[in-house]
């Protein structure tokens, strides 16, 4: 959608904290992820509809407004949920390690991988194989022409923004058992997400997947091998990609 959104880290964190609160009422992680995602999606929809809509094409304005909201969200989370890290329990039936060919894998992480592949596939099918996806792509590529042929671009964009925000929120809840919810989670997630997008290429789902794989691998090995320089190592693949392919691995257009 070509909107500079810096609230995503904060939305991820908001999702994680909402997950904490929902889990107190409904002790089921998947329900919490769904509800947390919906709540964050609703918030994202309001943000898009009432603020970002007016700033279409004004990148700097979008950046400052989303950054402002990121601060407000982070600060309010601190007020509501306090400064201590809150762990989110792993669901009971996924606590046993999974044994495959003599190797033990933590079952929850396997479930997260499966789920993310499912979500990625669903998004791909939505964007590339359905009428709705074609309409969204048309709106991004040429908004005026899309409007002229009767596509409700504004409504679609609100929907897409909701979807993006909702996925960030649900991601926060699902990431909870691995990372727990703590202040500063947003600032930890944002550079990761940005590097993933820069690496993979803006506007490409395959790019986002490839980007997260590379970033995940490099980051995990980097933390294990050179813990103090993990951030520098994280950033090396990005330099290489930018040097040879400025639009990212799978990017359609330069960001």
């Amino acid at each position, binding site marked *: 959608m070509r909107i500079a959104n810096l609230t995503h880290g904060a939305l991820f964190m908001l999702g994680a904290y909402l997950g904490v609160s929902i889990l107190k009422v409904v002790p089921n992680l998947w329900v919490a992820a769904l509800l947390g995602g919906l709540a964050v999606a609703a918030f994202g929809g309001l943000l898009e509809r009432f603020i970002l809509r007016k700033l279409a094409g004004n990148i700097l304005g979008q950046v*400052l407004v989303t950054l*402002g909201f*990121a601060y407000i969200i982070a600060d309010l989370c601190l007020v509501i949920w306090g400064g201590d890290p809150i762990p989110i329990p792993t669901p009971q039936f996924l606590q046993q390690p999974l044994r495959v060919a003599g190797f033990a894998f933590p079952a929850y992480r396997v479930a997260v991988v499966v789920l993310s592949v499912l979500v990625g596939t669903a998004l791909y099918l939505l964007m590339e194989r359905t009428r709705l996806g074609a309409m969204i792509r048309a709106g991004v590529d040429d908004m005026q022409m899309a409007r002229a042929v009767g596509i409700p671009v504004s409504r679609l964009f609100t929907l897409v923004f909701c979807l993006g925000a909702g996925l960030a929120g649900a991601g926060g809840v699902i990431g909870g058992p691995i990372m727990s919810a703590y202040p500063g989670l947003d600032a930890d997630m944002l550079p990761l997400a940005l590097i993933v997008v820069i690496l993979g290429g803006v506007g490409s789902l395959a790019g986002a997947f490839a980007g997260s794989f590379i970033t995940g691998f490099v980051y995990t090995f980097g933390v294990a091998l050179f813990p103090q320089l993990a951030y520098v190592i994280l950033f090396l693949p990005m330099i290489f990609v930018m040097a040879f392919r400025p639009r990212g691995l799978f990017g359609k257009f330069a960001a």
Partner: protein
Amino acid sequence: MKLAALACLLVGFPLVGGEFYVNLASQIFIFAIFAASINLLLGYGGLATLGHASYLGVAAYTSALLGLKLGLGHWLAAPAALLATTLMACLFGLIALRATGLGFLMLTLALSQVLWGTAYRWVALTDGDNGLRGLSRPFHLDDAASFYYFALAATAASLWLMARFVGSPFGAALRGTRDQPRRMSALGHHVWLIRWITFVYAGFWGAVSGLLFVYYHKYIHPISLSLTNSAEGLLAVIAGGSGTLAGPVVGAAIVMLLKNYVSAYIERWNTLLGLVFVLIVVFMPEGVVPGVKRLWLRFASRT
């Protein structure tokens, strides 16, 4: 005439102002250099950066580390810090200027977040969250008034040099690349090179503000490298009016006053900062200086 009056006011200020206000003014000066260096990129080059705290922080850390770990005096540490930071700006410019617009912004942000994370995690070198303490000021400028004059002189010199840069033919070419990059390219200007030189120049002045920053506080913490710091600088430029010479200075004063005064009464400084961001973008997108100028012109034309 106006400038001379302003100079008299600024020189005379420590004689009447209390120590708190003199220190606050010094902080505004330092922040004004920082904001003005962002303005070179944003206002004149049309390049929105969210990573300018890198230069402030790296210069501050370099000079602090050279002093603490190698025992270098300020005469050596300060030029070394400026040189190292400027070289870093050369390198970062090569990477970040692969893109413009949103891509440029994301790259500068990612680069600065990397430095911020490194400063936090590399405890052996930077002492992580504790920050580096026990630093000294050059020339034994330990009382508020003498540091004020030092900062005032440095700020005046920096702003003058930046104004010269913008007013030069090169500055005109830079504004050309902001408004009509394709036409400038067709006219034979090397658009990328113009942007890169500006990027490095802005990085240098960011480093200067970093040196003053670490001299003032005699302490440096990873938060100086954080996104918040870059964003506050950007906010100061936009609040004051980007692409004007006085804008960043006015904006720096506004942000610093808000930060120092209001945070004494309101605990939730980050929420307030966020609200200020939103309000300025929604209601005063052009900034305070052009806004006031426009009101003044309207007022003057009526009478």
